């Protein structure tokens, strides 16, 4: 989890104006979308436009992700072929299964060989949006070394489950928990489903907090307006940073004094607490908070 992915902003793949401004909106990653945001009659057009944008547009250091069409459609394979050659940071596979991830991995390997480009440079994100995907998420992560994260797609998931999608999101808590735990177990990113009401920033804040509280590492956004709110939630608080700094100082003091075990504020400081403190400080540093 070395790359910071608090926000992954969806951008329609067939809109040149949005593509050329994608890098200046402040998101950690942008997802150039060839799937739902593009009409079936424009899939060819969007694919070529996104390929050219990756090769020519300055994304100002923002991570570039391309969501391809599912491999079960007539567009998926051609998307992988054309987009992998242009060298995005990540290819996102929708309705991902283990087989899909393996297939895309093999296709990218072949393209990397043919073009003599760095092996393994293009990473994968699996979009989990079916009941089968949720139950199988750990195996999907393990099906390729390129997988660096999972995105939960709650709209399609609830459609697959034939249940109502609500604003409070109780119906997706199991999926969120399962994905967060599997991702943490494999040390990859768990990105929460987007909050679809772009006018309700308070609702977005609460929904983002819910995801963070169960171990999600970031959240997808569908509007640039949502970025600041999500970043605010995922930023470590002043209290967390201050405590983490004290833990690290206590570790250094204990080392100097030759102590194996020690306590802080009357509580034993063990390895998980030290790891957590380090993670918080690393995160704060990468967000330029400390």
């Amino acid at each position: 989890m070395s790359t910071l992915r608090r926000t992954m902003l969806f951008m329609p793949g067939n809109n040149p104006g949005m593509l050329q401004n994608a890098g200046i909106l402040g998101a950690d990653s942008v997802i150039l979308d060839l799937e739902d945001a593009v009409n079936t009659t424009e899939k060819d057009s969007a694919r070529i436009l996104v390929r050219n944008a990756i090769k020519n547009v300055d994304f100002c250091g923002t991570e570039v992700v391309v969501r391809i069409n599912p491999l079960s459609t007539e567009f998926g394979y051609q998307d992988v072929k054309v987009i992998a050659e242009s060298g995005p940071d990540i290819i996102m596979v929708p309705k991902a299964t283990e087989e899909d991830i393996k297939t895309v991995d093999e296709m990218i390997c072949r393209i990397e060989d043919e073009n003599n480009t760095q092996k393994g440079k293009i990473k994968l994100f699996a979009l989990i949006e079916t009941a089968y995907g949720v139950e199988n998420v750990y195996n999907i992560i393990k099906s390729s070394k390129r997988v660096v994260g999972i995105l939960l797609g709650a709209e399609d998931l609830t459609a697959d489950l034939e249940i109502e999608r609500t604003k409070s999101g109780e119906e997706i808590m199991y999926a969120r928990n399962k994905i967060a735990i599997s991702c943490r177990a494999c040390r990859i990113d768990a990105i929460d489903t987007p909050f679809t009401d772009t006018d309700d920033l308070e609702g977005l804040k609460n929904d983002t907090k819910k995801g963070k509280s169960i171990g999600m590492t970031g959240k997808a956004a569908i509007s640039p307006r949502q970025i600041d709110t999500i970043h605010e939630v995922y930023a470590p608080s002043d209290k967390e940073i201050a405590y983490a700094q004290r833990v690290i100082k206590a570790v250094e003091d204990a080392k100097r004094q030759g102590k194996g075990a020690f306590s802080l504020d009357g509580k034993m400081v063990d390895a998980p607490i030290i790891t957590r403190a380090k993670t918080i400080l690393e995160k704060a540093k990468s967000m330029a908070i400390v």
Partner: protein
Amino acid sequence: MSFLNIKKPARAGTMESNDIYIMIQPCDEGNKIQLESTVIKQFGKQIEKAIEETLAELGVKNAYIVAKDRGALDCTIRARIETAVMRAI
């Protein structure tokens, strides 16, 4: 280099800002370009050059192109021309 024969009329792109709308059809007298642009005075020659180069790279020699530009970047112009060509062969 292989030669792509334009066989039927096709379109690509939109009239939205930062895009370019391309209409293509077969032409008996080589490649011909008719360009309209909001920035024709500043970038007309550059846009025509991008269109000509893309046609040449694709091996197209019989296209009549009508292009309506709304301030598209070079990479967008090239993408829309390529799409129009692929739809026209």
